[in-house]
């Protein structure tokens, strides 16, 4: 009988939360972008994003060059030339890798917008991973060291016939409890 009276309001609360959540989603959804509209750049621009505009005046990729401060806010002549080359090589049937490699041969690895995964350049990709692994190892080591320091056995065993707690100890415990529950 008691169970029945308790579960009813609970179910009602769950239903209310669902209704409220659905209304929130319904309200927020129109604010979200049209997901199907995300624009896929054309092949040449997509490849152009992988190589840097080598004009020396900007740090943009050839596919995304906008050249701040230039007479024209858009791809500069160098970027346009690079995109034209890419277009021509795509038309010739060259593979993406071959096209990118042709730029590497011409300008060196500095032309790539992201470091290659092999050789010394691969180190750039390894560093964050290694840092994460080392950090994780450190966190696990710290946690296990802290846990080892704990020795609850004797303390619990002594709790039964422990001497009365001093006023000072009690105050310290209260202060600690206050700090623990503050934030």
């Amino acid at each position, binding site marked *: 009988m008691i169970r029945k009276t308790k579960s009813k309001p609970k179910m009602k609360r769950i239903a209310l939360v669902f209704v409220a959540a659905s209304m929130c989603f319904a309200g927020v959804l129109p604010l979200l972008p049209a997901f199907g509209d995300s624009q896929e750049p054309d092949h040449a621009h997509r490849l152009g994003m992988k190589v840097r505009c080598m004009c020396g005046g900007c740090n943009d990729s050839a596919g995304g060059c906008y050249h701040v401060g230039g007479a024209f806010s858009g791809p500069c002549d160098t970027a346009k030339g690079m995109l034209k080359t890419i277009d021509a090589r795509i038309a010739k049937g060259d593979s993406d890798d071959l096209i990118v490699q042709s730029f590497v041969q011409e300008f060196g690895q500095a032309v790539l917008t992201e470091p290659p995964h092999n050789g010394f350049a691969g180190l750039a990709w390894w560093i964050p991973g290694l840092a994460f692994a080392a950090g994780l190892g450190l966190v696990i080591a710290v946690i296990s060291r*802290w846990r080892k320091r704990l020795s609850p056995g004797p303390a619990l065993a002594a709790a039964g016939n422990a001497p009365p707690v001093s006023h000072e100890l009690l105050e310290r415990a209260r202060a600690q409890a206050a700090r623990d529950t503050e934030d």
Partner: protein
Amino acid sequence: MDVFGSFALVLAFICAVYAFVGGIAAIVTRHPLLIKSARQSGIATCCLIFIATFSIEYLFFTDNFASAYVVSHSNRALATFYKIGALWAGQEGSLLFWSFVLAIYVFSVLVAYRNKNGELMPYVGVILAGVQIFFLTLNNFIASPFKALAVPGANGAMEFVARSDGNGLTPLLQYPEMVIHPPHLYSGYTGFTIPFAFALAALLARYPGEKWIHLTRKWTMIAWGFQTAGILLGAHWAYAVLGWGGYWGWDPVENASLLPWLTGTAFLHSVMMQEKRGMMKVWNVWLVFSTFLLCIMGTFLTRSGVVSSVHAFAQSNIGRWFVGFLVVIFLTCLVAYVKNRDYLTSENQLDSVVSRESSFLFNNLVLLVSCVAVLSGTLFPVLSEAVSGSKISVGAPFFNKVNIPLGLFLLFLTGVGPLLAWRKTSAESLKRNFAWPLILGLIGGAALFFAGMREFYALLCFSLCIFVTTTILMEFYRGAKVIRTRSGASFLTSAIELTMRNTRRYGGYIVHMGMVLIFIGLAGAAFTQNVQKEMQQGSSMQIGKYTLVLQGLDTKPEANYTGHRLIVEVFVANKPIMMLYPERREFETNGETGTMVAIYSTLREDLYVVYAGQSPAGSDLPVIHAYLNPLVKWIWFGGVIVVFGTLVALMPNRRAVLVLTGAGAKQTAGETLVRGMTPSVTIREGHD
């Protein structure tokens, strides 16, 4: 006035040296008069830096073109507002501005604590004076902004001259945000000097307890708040002025501002473990040291020319001074740590892996790995050139690939951390706290998936945003419910009361909520569209649901530039909704051009229209580059919320104060309730 300013800077240097040397003598001898004189010398240093800074601003306002710095960065037609910003347009002025902002902090600390913390403050004074000496050395001897304009005379000797007008300010800096963004960022960078000075001082003085943490908490939050605001203002400036449709390009200078922010954020979290549990002392001290070192490193990157950046100042030999300073600071920190490491022994242990402490460890891990990734990526081109002889570029794709997963993991921890209890969290508590956020996050993710969203990271980001928002709202709901039950006030009033009773905790939640909004905005970048088209008058272009019609072009001569403006009418479903005026500005004094982007901003998306220039193909027709950037407004709104949350967290707590009430004293509803429980006392609200 230039001689006056220059003289003030020299005097400031002398005073700083006295504050440093006299301070050390005061620490050794413990002589009260020596302590006082060192402190007063520190205050005098700050006042003299203020005078020098006002002197250079006076030169700008009076169009003193006998000053080389004024000639380089101003002209008569420059608006007065921008003459303020011209101070930090060049290397010399920006270094003086750095000293100025640092002086405000140092002055505030020396005055606020003049009669407090007698054991610690002499050490703090010496460290602050040491930092000031470095910057004053640069201001006086390496990059003085008070150099007079001189040209080679007929006999080859240099002659002082005065020009009738200056070269003008870089067009990119002639935008209102450039007058407020750098001061915010500099206040962030220099503000971290204060926690650094207190941490090093506490270590050197073996100052007992965690008092230095309490003393510096607010200073750290102020610096962090400024750094956050500075970064976001910079992003907004890049978005509104540069005209490339984005707000963050992972440029080395942008990265430099992010690095101390990441370690500063880690410190703000891990410091709670030291305050509450006496843990992580070594970690916290090194986080503060690292944050300060990264601030100096950021300045070094910006000014040395060691990495190529669109933001960087001209290449100069100033970098070696910063390297020297970095080495000196690092060695000082290392020696202080090695000598006093026993002082940093942890007082408590971890009681459970599932606890707030563990979540902070993971939070710190993610923030630090992100910092390492950004730092290594920024410096890798230099490293690769030094090691292999060929420069390897590390651009935006690398930073995005590495940092997006880390950022999402951090967002997840933002939701998890606050719901875990200190020491230990029970399984029951986990279930109670996480069930609803998880369910709603998953439902939200599924709903978005079925609505057509297929971008994995965006989908994950939105789901996590729902998860974190729910955890935050639940925290407010639970706390407000208790207050509401007792006081009978409305939920909103109870939530405000709850926040005011523990400003730090609930201010922190508001900051987290702001970060959620920022993440929502960042996720929108996955759905950006752009179209570029040559336009004739009356022709139109389509982007998303918007139709842009070019109605005309006008040219408007202004005092400092000539503006070429396109008049673009925006239609949605054949209904006119807005006129936009994208503009290109030609600055006659230096021959440079700048863009003024026209933005129609809604919560859903920004219609971002750039007048790219006349077609380079030869037709001379105007070219419009239009972008549709979804959810960008959420980033700026989130930034405002973050700053608001920081301000809330800085406010003192409103606490219940126990007072005895006499017979017949007036009672409120709340008092009556409490009297029912404890008849001899009532609760009065007040501030601590």
